[in-house]
C-alpha cells in the first residue's frame, strides 16, 4: 500500500512551533478530520516539538498518510528522565489526545486513525 509522505524540518526555536501547528492543521483538514481531531493533532505535535526543542538544532517531523491513519513522527522526543512537571504534562497530553503514541529510539510516533468516509 502506497503512503503519502510530508516532511517538515524547522529550526529549534520556540517561535517556529506555531508554524508546525498551522502546517498540521492544513494536512489534517485535507484528510477530512474533524475540528476536534485537528485540534488534538495540533496540541500533541506542539508538545512533541517542545520536548525535542532543547535536544537538537533542527526538529524533524514526518507525516505519513495511509488508508486508515495519519502517523506523525518527531525525532529527539524522549520520556523525561526526571520529574520535570511540564515535560510530564506534555507527554500526558500527547497520550490522551492521540489514538496511539509509541516511543522509539529515534523519537516518538503518534497516530490518529482515519474513520471510514473521512477522505
Amino acid at each position, binding site marked *: 500500500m502506497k503512503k503519502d509522505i510530508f516532511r517538515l524540518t524547522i529550526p529549534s526555536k520556540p517561535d517556529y512551533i*506555531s508554524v508546525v501547528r498551522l502546517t498540521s492543521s492544513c494536512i489534517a483538514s485535507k484528510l477530512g478530520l474533524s475540528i476536534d481531531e485537528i485540534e488534538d493533532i495540533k*496540541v500533541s505535535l506542539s*508538545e512533541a516539538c517542545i520536548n525535542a526543542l532543547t535536544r537538537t538544532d533542527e526538529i524533524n517531523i514526518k507525516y505519513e498518510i495511509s488508508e486508515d491513519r495519519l502517523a506523525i513522527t518527531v525525532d529527539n522526543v524522549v520520556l523525561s528522565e526526571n520529574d520535570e512537571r511540564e515535560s510530564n*504534562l506534555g507527554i*500526558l497530553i500527547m497520550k*490522551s489526545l492521540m489514538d496511539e503514541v509509541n516511543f522509539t529510539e529515534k523519537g516518538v510516533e503518534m497516530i490518529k486513525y482515519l474513520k471510514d468516509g473521512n477522505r
Partner: protein
Amino acid sequence: MALNIMIKFDEINNHWSVEPEGEIDIYTSPELKEKLSKALDDKMADIVIDGEKLDYIDSTGLGTLIGILKIIKENKNKIYIRNIKPNIRKLFDITELDKVFVIEE
C-alpha cells in the same frame, strides 16, 4: 499568531482581571509570566482569567499558571478561570488541573 494580554486591577471585586487574547505557548508564556509576576509584586490578590479570546494553550502555558498559583497560594489567593473554550477545557481535564484552578463556566 501571538498573544495580547490585558491585565487590570478590578477595584470593586479586589482581584486582577486578566484577558489573554491568542495563544499561550512556549513562545509567549515567558511574557505572561513576567506580566503576572509584576502585577502580583504590585498587589497580591486573586487572579481571574477570562478565556473568551484564548485560542490555544500548551504545557508551558499550563506550567506558567501552576508557577503563579504556587506564589499566590502562600497568601491563600486563588486563580479563577472563566469562559474557556472546549478545546482548552479538555487540556485542564486531562491534566487534572481542573482540580487545581477554580474553573467557572
